[in-house]
């Protein structure tokens, strides 16, 4: 038996307001733009996709299971701009077929600069999930699936049973991502690896006319899943794939509506959530990742966020404020919102190769504008901290 595990990442950053060296008393976050984007994505993606999944669960029952990870930054905006989206996630939770995963509340890069801050944000997120859905997450996924031996160790130490990351050849070598593995020097935690080929078939290639498999149909895709060897196939994708990255007219919703039925036609396939995988299967080996891995771009590293000197400087300057800002309740939340990975993503200059993905709802004309705006806000925060 091979278990198909679907997990959807749900996140929207809080985009920053235009902030110049002359700005005073200007709000840091662009409420107008954030609302506009959120309402649009709610209409095109969140609401119709949640509806589709609810229908599937009520028709198929216990045999169909999925998982989500919702960031705190997403939930905050959801409550403010489209509370009906939160309600529909609660309905999904109420079915009992949906697992919610753990991550940093702020979709941040905290793991890269402060263990204390990293743990704090996980805790905040955990409390939010408990509060919204009455679930205690057992499986952790870090921002952009960032992972290393060290990160796995931290996650194990705070009681998690599983951690999600990319199933990449760089550390797997000849081994398949379709098994559970044990992070190096860990005992109580297993790693769930994304099958990036089958995930990207939906996430990136679904509507790609240059692709020899175009058009992708649910029965074709199910036959690929059925042919997979291993205990599990992990399909981890951005939720915005449905209706936003892949627009409604590509047929993505029709695909989703029939996919579970097509998968269940195969006797060797079933659906499991990440926690169920951990209960059902055993680790087959150890993975050793002594560097930071991620699921982004071709390089699968942190270069989309922390490659050029602008990104490094902005990150460094932000991180430096940790001790000072922790004494200031009002600025603490703002400072954490500035840790959201997207702000650094917008400063990425290698956009000629992987350009399209980087441009998605990017509010800036250039990475240089993104840098300036971020630094001006950081400067203003510094000024306020010094004034205290």
């Amino acid at each position, binding site marked *: 038996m091979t278990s198909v595990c679907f997990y959807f990442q749900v996140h929207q950053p809080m985009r920053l307001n235009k902030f*110049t*060296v*002359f700005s005073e008393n200007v709000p840091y976050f662009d409420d107008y733009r954030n609302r506009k984007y959120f309402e649009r994505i709610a209409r095109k993606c969140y609401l119709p996709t949640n509806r589709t999944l609810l229908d599937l669960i009520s028709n198929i029952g216990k045999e169909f299971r999925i998982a989500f990870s919702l960031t705190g930054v997403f939930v905050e905006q959801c409550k403010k701009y489209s509370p009906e989206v939160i309600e529909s996630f609660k309905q999904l939770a109420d079915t009992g077929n949906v697992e919610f995963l753990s991550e940093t509340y702020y979709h941040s890069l905290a793991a890269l600069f402060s263990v204390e801050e990293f743990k704090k944000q996980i805790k905040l997120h955990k409390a939010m999930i408990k509060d919204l859905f009455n679930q205690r997450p057992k499986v952790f996924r870090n921002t952009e699936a960032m992972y290393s031996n060290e990160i796995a160790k931290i996650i194990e130490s705070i009681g998690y049973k599983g951690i999600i990351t990319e199933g990449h050849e760089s550390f797997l070598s000849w081994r398949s991502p379709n098994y559970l593995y044990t992070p190096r020097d860990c005992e109580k935690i297993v790693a769930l690896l994304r099958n990036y080929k089958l995930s990207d078939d939906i996430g990136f290639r679904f509507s790609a006319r240059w692709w020899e498999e175009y058009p992708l149909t649910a029965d074709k895709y199910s036959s690929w899943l059925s042919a997979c060897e291993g205990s599990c196939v992990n399909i981890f994708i951005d939720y915005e794939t449905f209706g936003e990255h892949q627009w409604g007219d590509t047929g993505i919703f029709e695909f989703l509506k029939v996919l579970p039925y097509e998968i269940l036609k195969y006797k060797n396939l079933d659906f499991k959530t990440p926690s169920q995988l951990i209960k059902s299967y055993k680790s087959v080996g150890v993975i050793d990742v002594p560097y930071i891995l991620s699921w982004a771009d071709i390089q699968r590293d942190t270069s989309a966020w922390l490659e*050029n*000197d*602008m990104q*490094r*400087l902005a990150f460094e300057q932000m991180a430096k404020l940790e001790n000072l800002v922790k004494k200031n309740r009002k600025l603490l939340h703002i400072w954490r919102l500035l840790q959201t990975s997207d702000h650094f993503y917008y400063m990425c*200059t290698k956009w000629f190769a992987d350009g399209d993905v980087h441009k998605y709802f990017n509010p800036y*004309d*250039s*990475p*240089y*504008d993104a*840098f*300036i705006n971020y*630094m*001006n806000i950081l400067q203003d925060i510094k000024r306020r901290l010094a004034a205290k």
Partner: protein
Amino acid sequence: MRILILGWEFPPAKTGGLGTHCYELVKNLGKKGIKVLLFIPKRSENAKHDLENVEIVEVGSAISNPYNATDPTTFEKGYGWNFFDEVREFNKKCIALALQRKFDVIHCHDWITFSAGVELKNRMGKPLVVTIHSTEYDRTANIYPMKFIVDIEKNGIEEANKVITVSKHMKKQLIERYGADERKITVIYNGIDYTKFFGVTNKQHRNIVLFLGRLTNQKGPYFFLHTAKKVLEKKSDVLFVVGGQGEKLPELIREAINLGITDNVVFTGYLSEDELTRAYEMADVYVMPSVAEPFGITALEAIASGTPVIVSKTAGVAEKIRHCFKVDFWDTHEMANKIICVLRYHVLGECMRRNSYGELKDFGWDRVADQTIDVYRRV
């Protein structure tokens, strides 16, 4: 193939991108085996005559160049009338000379030579290609464009078999303002010989902000001074260099005095080629706040000198260069914001100048010549 090119500027006599364009174009056409017959006005300095397959004929007597003047009293409604007589004379002589020569295509650059181009086309039955580097509306920044020049431009564009523009923005202008037929317009961006500049050297960070160009309304020097005023309110140790000469120099000096920023502004006047390349290299940031900028070759020159650039959004060069700041020319507030940040965070300028330098490889004159030959073939 033999091409007759009617030009106006040619090194060492030049006031802007047009002269550089003509020189590099004929040089690279010649290299590719195209025979070029170039007619240019006879000026006090002799033109360079060292290019293979290029025959240069200097026509007529020395001519004044109104676009370069610093003394506004020589101007009457923007130009001296004397200048128009000379233009007429130049065109007449070009026609007389050209009638005795053999060539396949006539290629004119800007309105000054259009009347000769059109007449030769009709009398000799040869196809006409015109390149528009700037229009009368651009040069006057929309302040009192002279109707008869607009008419010459319009007529040239209508008569031409093919029209070349240096940007998409210019193409759009020709369609909207001159009623040009979209199908005959080809966009060919200007090029740069970046080996003439210093490249990405170590910056000394002297806090120098550079403006370079003809001091006319078109280039937006007033916006530069007002931006300087705003920068200086936040940061006092910055030097603003206004390079170049032009009719507005006296007024600009007065404006700097009125703004109270004379301690931080330097007007250089005329700069030699050598001084130019050094100025580009010394600056921490180059600003091009042009009101109208069909292409903006100086931005490429700054990039070739390893200097980050802030350019007007509508400049042709902004259509192609991605690693730069793009601003509205009137938005002095935003320009000041960007200048301060470039001076404050050196990593910003470093990233920008290294990446933009890499973009120059798309701007070879070799490519300009190939695309131009392609246009000749199609007529």
